[in-house]
């Protein structure tokens, strides 16, 4: 420290006493005088220092809460990612509920258990088994269309092959019924492996890309009208007497989460109108037209009936008027049949 020597004198004592008195006066100041004084000091001399202090405290708070903020940000990001998945699952479950409402009866809801191993890409494990009513060879469907067929049934679970399985076959047709064939997995290289092909289509039947293919109901496994896929194009094969078409499956592997297994009774009674296929739309349009016609017919009949009643009412009023005008004892008026009738 600075070693300079100082002399202590009377002036210092006076200064000290004055300062102490001033301090005590400040201590004893009433609020109405103290507050304006303190406020004026804060707004003038201390203003820049207070600003510095505020910034420092904000910096410290930002530093202290950085981990909490990072954790909160991560949680929000994680929650938003989960929300997307929940949203997708919700949408899918709504579709499944819609399918259940249209099917009304004869179906068993099941979850597709994930974690398929190598070599098991073409079969899925379902969470419903024999206890729930699942039987072998039952069709497995999703809101979009056909998923596959139950192969093995255990009490609490079952194993189904999906359309990509090499053994999978379904008799199919164009939605308008113009062409029939057998749909099986397209055994091509990897990108095309998850496509279907429709074989044995007669040469005279040409299918345009985008045509919807549904199950034909031939055979005893799959009922008629389940969407199988849409036509992508024709494949050139060595078969000259039949055409083969490449199909895009109605149900993609990623959509195989929640499915429904149709019971044999439901398969037998059919699922017409459950999926909005072309045939279903046509029949719906026809039904709407028919309903319109019947309404028109009913309206015309109602008008005709009203006109008849008015006519009958008029005739009754004429006969009453004629009876009133007739003299006592005169015979009742009868229509003059002898009068010439104008053609």
């Amino acid at each position: 420290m600075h070693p300079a020597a100082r002399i202590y004198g009377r002036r210092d004592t006076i200064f000290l006493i004055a300062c102490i008195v001033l301090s005590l006066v400040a201590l004893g100041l009433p609020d109405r005088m103290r507050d304006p004084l303190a406020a004026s000091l804060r707004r003038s001399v201390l203003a820049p220092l207070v600003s510095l202090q505020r910034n420092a405290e904000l910096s410290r708070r930002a530093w202290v809460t950085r981990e909490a903020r990072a954790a909160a940000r991560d949680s929000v990001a994680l929650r938003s990612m989960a929300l997307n998945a929940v949203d997708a699952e919700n949408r899918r479950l709504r579709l499944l509920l819609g399918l259940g409402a249209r099917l009304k009866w004869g179906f068993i809801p099941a979850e597709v258990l994930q974690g398929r191993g190598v070599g098991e890409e073409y079969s899925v494990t379902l969470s419903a088994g024999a206890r729930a009513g699942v039987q072998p060879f039952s069709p497995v469907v999703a809101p979009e269309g056909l998923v596959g067929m139950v192969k093995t049934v255990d009490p609490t679970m079952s194993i189904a092959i999906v359309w990509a399985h090499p053994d999978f076959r379904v008799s199919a047709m164009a939605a308008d019924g113009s062409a029939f064939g057998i749909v099986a997995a397209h055994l091509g290289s990897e990108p095309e492996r998850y496509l279907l092909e429709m074989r044995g289509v007669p040469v005279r039947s040409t299918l345009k890309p985008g045509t919807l293919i549904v199950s034909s109901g031939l055979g005893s496994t799959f009922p008629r009208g389940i969407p199988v896929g849409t036509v992508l194009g024709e494949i050139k094969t060595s078969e000259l007497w039949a055409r083969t078409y490449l199909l895009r499956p109605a149900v993609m592997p990623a959509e195989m989460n929640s499915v429904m297994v149709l019971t044999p009774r439901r398969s037998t009674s059919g699922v017409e109108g459950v999926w909005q296929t072309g045939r279903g739309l046509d029949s719906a349009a026809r039904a709407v037209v028919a309903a319109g016609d019947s309404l028109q017919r009913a309206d015309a009949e109602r008008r005709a009936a009203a006109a008849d009643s008015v006519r009958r009412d008029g005739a009754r009023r004429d006969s009453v008027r004629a009876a009133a005008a007739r003299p006592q004892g005169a015979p009742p008026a009868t229509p003059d049949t002898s009068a010439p009738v104008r053609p």
Partner: protein
Amino acid sequence: MRPTDLVRTLVAFVVLVLLHYTLRPLLGWRASPDFLIIALLLIAIRVRPGTAALVGLVMGVVADSLQPHAFGAGALGMTLVGFGASWLKAVFFADDVFLNAFFFFLGKWAFDLVFLLAEHRLGGGELLVEILVWSPLKGIVTAVFGLVTLLILRPILRSSPT
């Protein structure tokens, strides 16, 4: 005091005041260093006791404006500490690290003692804990920071040759 020394001391004083309003809130410790006391002691050992008391009064009043409930308590504490430091500087004349540290510790503790007694906010055990536990802790922290500050500001505070 020569004008050069006065300027140097003022620079060190401003630096310490800035540290009080930036580093102290940044640290946010319960027992935080009091750079205003360090600045007051730095001035006090270079001026007459009366002037040191006046500087203490001004610093105290300005600092008290941030805590109106104790307006005047800080001024009284700084007045007494400033005067006492200037008066006792002959005792702590030697440029010894530990003596300087003790000087800062004593200054801070004395200030807290006067402040706490004058503001009449705390009482009983709470006041005792504050005086016997927290104030000494603050004094120790202030002493450490005072020594570090002195080491850093040594080039500025060194007296110019006569």
